[in-house]
């Protein structure tokens, strides 16, 4: 026997560079990660974005304010109402427009429904990421019901263009309340079913617990927000910490994770769906009558010269709009603060000791929407 065979010299292995995306099945859009792996273990990961860069911020500078709302629909294309709300609120704040109560309440219903729809989509795709193929169908079943309500209210299933500066485009249809009353028990049951199918499955727990841990300090330093931040143990919710619209009138819980791992990020969202349902019930109970459009908003909006920053709680986190107006009918500068952008940035910190399979799970648990990341 030669001595070479018995020495304990470490094997000379090469690091393999894998290009995950932009056409990988589980990158949630056109997103590319370059992953260096040693066997199955991740050594380094570098995200590349920009494949979906449409220049929404720059485009907004050439559009009328009402037209910009259509652009905001297309940022985070699974939580459109929330985006619209943020932009409308920015202009309303700048102009000092008081939105009528009824409009505010309907806005809250729509936003919360959209939050559930978005989280259901997350639930499905996260299931796919960990290798279960049924959750997406369950998620889509209930999302479909919500979208049918959206269609009845706004006329579109995805790109609603429903909120206006000062209110809404039109009132909800007359059978809205009955439809909601039919929808809510279905949704409650659907969420329970989703929860039972996946949340505590042993294989699922093994795949997501203690994977991709983002500590509290890191989450804050990276500017993570929304479920990612809350899963790391920071009870920060814009609806509570800086209440906008009429959110301060409702009673709900803010789910907060304990470890900041993938399971926490997943389950925070499941709980948020339940809380959103709670909010919707309260809103429906309180929904007042009245106008849906503020008086005094012209067709062509010319906010006064100035600048404003408004943030709201999107399904993905803290969505902000920084709007600079020069007094004309077009915005001078619109800066969008997309929550996924920063959550995605924090992903590098979650990659410690991860395996190739975990990259996919971690990316899924961050729940990015590339339309918003790249803008």
């Amino acid at each position: 026997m030669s001595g070479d065979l018995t020495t304990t010299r470490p094997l000379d292995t090469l690091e393999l560079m894998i290009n995950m995306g932009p056409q990988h099945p589980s990158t949630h859009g056109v997103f590319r990660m370059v992953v260096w792996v040693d066997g199955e273990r991740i050594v380094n990961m570098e995200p590349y974005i920009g494949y979906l860069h449409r220049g929404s911020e720059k485009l907004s500078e050439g559009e009328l304010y009402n037209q910009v709302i259509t652009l905001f629909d297309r940022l985070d294309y699974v939580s459109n109402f929330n985006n619209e709300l943020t932009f409308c609120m920015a202009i309303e704040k700048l102009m000092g427009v008081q939105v009528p109560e009824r409009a505010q309440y309907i806005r809250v219903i729509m936003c919360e429904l959209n939050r559930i729809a978005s989280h259901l989509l997350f639930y499905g795709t996260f299931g796919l990421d960990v290798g279960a193929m049924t959750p997406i169908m369950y998620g889509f079943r209930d999302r479909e019901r919500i979208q049918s309500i959206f269609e009845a209210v706004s006329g579109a299933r995805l790109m609603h263009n429903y909120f206006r500066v000062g209110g809404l485009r039109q009132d909800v249809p007359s059978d809205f309340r009955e439809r909601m009353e039919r929808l809510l028990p279905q949704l409650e049951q659907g969420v329970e079913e989703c929860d039972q199918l996946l949340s505590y499955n042993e294989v699922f727990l093994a795949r997501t617990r203690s994977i991709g841990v983002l500590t509290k300090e890191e989450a804050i330093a990276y500017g993570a927000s929304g479920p990612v931040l809350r899963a790391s143990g920071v009870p920060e919710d814009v609806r509570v910490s800086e209440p906008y619209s009429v959110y301060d009138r409702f009673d709900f819980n803010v789910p907060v994770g304990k470890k900041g791992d993938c399971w926490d990020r997943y389950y925070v969202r499941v709980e948020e769906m339940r809380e959103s349902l709670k909010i919707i019930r309260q809103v429906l109970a309180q929904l007042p009558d009245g106008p849906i459009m503020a008086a005094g908003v012209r067709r062509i909006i010319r906010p006064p010269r100035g600048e404003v920053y408004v943030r709201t709680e999107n399904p993905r986190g803290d969505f902000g709009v920084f709007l600079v107006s020069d007094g004309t009918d077009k915005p001078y500068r619109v800066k969008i603060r997309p929550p996924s952008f920063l959550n995605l940035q924090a992903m590098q910190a979650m990659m410690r000791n991860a395996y190739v399979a975990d990259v996919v799970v971690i990316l899924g648990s961050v729940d990015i929407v590339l339309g918003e990341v790249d803008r």
Partner: protein
Amino acid sequence: MLNSLKGLGVTLKTMLRKPVTAQYPKEHLPVNRRYMGFPALTWDFQVQEPYCVGCMVCIRNCPTQCMTATLKDNPLHKEGKSTRRKIVDIFEVNLGRCILCEICVEVCNFDAIVMSHEHELSKYERNGNRVDLQALLEMGKQYQEDTGWEPEQAAAPKEGVQA
């Protein structure tokens, strides 16, 4: 292991339920009343002419610049049959470019444009879904028939054409 068995139970339970999907081309789910399909022009059945006078408000307000229009003198006005002095001559929409935002409907002062329920418009050519006035009016008539559409602003005093 119990939770996994619970998951198996959930899938088994749903298996025994009715499927929620519909067989699409055979079976169309009904669209809601407000459904925003592609824009269409409405037809004034009383005077037998389009409501549209070609004032270009919608065109100037369109976020994607997907429409063009020109107007002409209305021959029916000369005959005294119509109150519209001008009438649309050419109206073209590139439906492939339209983003279904309903801004055109909102800004229209004459109830001339509606979001029809038309949404299946696949064509073999890239420019195949440019539609002209005739096709738009057809779509509009179909929509008016299907939904019993009635003008709502026609009775109200007209605001000045403003962009």
